[in-house]
């Protein structure tokens, strides 16, 4: 090859490379775009590289009337997140409310025993109404736990999930005291704080949180508040929603439909 041939080759090589490169990018984009359209509900289905936390903001909706108190969400959560099986540690739990005609309210956590106790379940004539309320970390917009953590081990992600860095947590438990919802506990294995993560490891891959995935009645709805087509946004449009302890100004992102005033 002489100099002239080499230069000719070069002239051809660069544009060709450019075209090929553009084609390759184009096909990447094609691959990514349906995934983006499909994010309506949850997260992109593309790989972690394509995931942009800025374009998401997650929350959960809970339709109280749909919950049948089967406790499968709790079991799924414990299995998915390796939560201790002992009944003192819950990332999510289900409460049962029995409101009597005389105004008396009896609450229990069916998750502690694994099922609702029989004695409370009797269909007495003095029972006005009963219902189940699933609880979990509210992933507040103004999380008091994040505010008080002395070392910044607990933090809110850009996509609206409150997480704990267990490698940084010093186990002072101030966050547990600061959480108005009892959502946190100290994991005795790591001696660090732990709580619901919205199954962040799944959500980032476009999957639903485990509790949402297994709910047989779709009482739990997970979604992206930044996407107009998300199921959560639709849920919020179709229902009158309420949050827990709004007076504390934590702005929870777990929204309840058909919530009774007795629920705290």
């Amino acid at each position, binding site marked *: 090859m002489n100099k002239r041939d080499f230069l000719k080759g070069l002239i051809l090589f660069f544009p060709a490379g450019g075209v090929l490169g553009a084609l390759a990018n184009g096909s990447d984009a094609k691959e990514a775009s349906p995934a983006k359209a499909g994010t309506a509900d949850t997260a992109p289905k593309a790989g972690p590289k394509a995931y942009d936390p800025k374009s998401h903001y997650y929350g959960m909706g809970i339709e109280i009337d749909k919950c049948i108190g089967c406790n499968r969400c709790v079991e799924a959560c414990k299995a998915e997140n390796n939560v*201790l099986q*002992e*009944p*003192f*540690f*819950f990332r999510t*739990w289900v*409460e049962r409310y029995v409101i009597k005609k005389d105004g008396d309210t*009896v*609450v*229990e*956590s069916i*998750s*502690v025993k694994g099922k609702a106790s029989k004695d409370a379940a009797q269909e007495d004539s003095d029972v006005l109404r009963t219902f189940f309320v699933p*609880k979990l970390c509210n992933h507040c917009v103004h999380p*008091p736990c*994040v*505010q*008080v*953590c*002395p*070392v*910044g081990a607990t933090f809110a992600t850009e996509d609206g999930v409150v997480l704990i860095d267990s490698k*940084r*947590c*010093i*186990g*002072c*438990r*101030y966050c*547990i*005291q*600061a*959480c*108005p*919802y*009892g*959502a*946190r*506990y*100290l994991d*005795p*294995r*790591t*001696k*660090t704080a732990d709580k619901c993560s919205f199954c962040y490891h799944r959500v980032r891959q476009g999957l639903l949180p485990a509790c949402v995935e297994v709910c047989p009645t779709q009482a739990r709805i997970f979604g992206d508040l930044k996407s107009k087509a998300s199921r959560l946004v639709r849920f919020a449009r179709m229902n009158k929603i309420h949050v827990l302890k709004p007076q*504390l100004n934590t702005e929870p992102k777990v929204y309840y439909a058909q919530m009774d005033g007795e629920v*705290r």
Partner: protein
Amino acid sequence: MNPEMAHDLTELLGQITGYIYPNEIEIQWSILIVVYPYITGLVAGAFILASLVKVFNVKEVQPTYRLALLTALAFLLVAPLPLLLHLGRPERFYEILLTPNVTSAMAMFGFVYAWYLMAVLLLEVWFEYRRDLIVMGAQERGLMGWIHRALSLFSHDTSEASLAFDRKAIRAITIIGIPSAFLLHGYVGFIFGSVKANPWWGSVLMPIVFLMSAIVSGIALVIFLYMMLAAIRKEPVNMPCLDTVTSYLFYAVIVDFSLEALDFIHRLYQSEESVKILGTLITHKLFMSLFVLQILIGMFIPLGILVVAKWRKLNEDGRKLLYFTAVILIQLGIFSTRWNVVIGGQLFSKSFRGLMAYKMEVMGIEGFLTALVLLAMPFLILAVLIRVLPTKRLADEAPKPA
């Protein structure tokens, strides 16, 4: 999870009344966190007593000045230990200093503590003792002489000008020191008072109540130590001093009681969502520690004793006996105050529907024995400090006590 813990928590599960969130079964802040505000309160209170002499020129209190300073120092040295031992991961404590979260009240601990120790207490102690250290260092031979010379940072200047500077410096430090002492303990109150999730804690009065009770406990402790020291050294107690300091104690207890009564009445009158569960809390869980120990034995009885001692014109021995009884009861009362805040605030569910139980460990790292050791440590440190740093100025020192 170890079976022992599972067993303990299962046992507690049976002691719940009403409904609690399932994660609330474990009481997170143990007796060590009761000890922590108790100790910092003693520091702040003792320092404020010491500053009465220097800033407000209360001459009668002079005999307790150095003792109060050393007491504050001894307790301050122990103050971080209960916090450290309580951490789930104590080996990571340095993160709180290296990467503090600026919105966290707790993250400020290291800075408030360091400021108070380095910029206030150690400096004031040094200026106060500089002349004595130089004099002692020059007279003594051997280890003690060397220690004294080292503690004086090898300064030699005992001229009138340098002593005048010492006095000026002490006054300046004390003036900075009073707000710093307020900061140190008011800040501890803020850690609790700023928790909006907990209605038993979340009160704007909390730092002020903490501060007043700190002053009460600090003064009472210095009186106790002063009388003990006099008894050990077989020296006469300076009665005008004792009478003055107990008067301050008397007024401090009254202010402290008024503040707590205000807090109580305010809660009762506002009668917010939480009033019902807090009512059950104090009648079912805190009756002994709040009504009996804190209010009756820790406040009313000592106040009565002080009134009797002041107005009945008792002789010296009678007054001494009454004062001594009163300060011990007051200590008990203030410890109960801390207990009622820290443990009491964790005995009711944030669902406001039920009460939990606290079972104190005895042997464990967060147990009763650790708490006792931590409470005894400052007294040992103080004993060492008094050996090195005499509690009386050298010039008026008697031949040589103990």
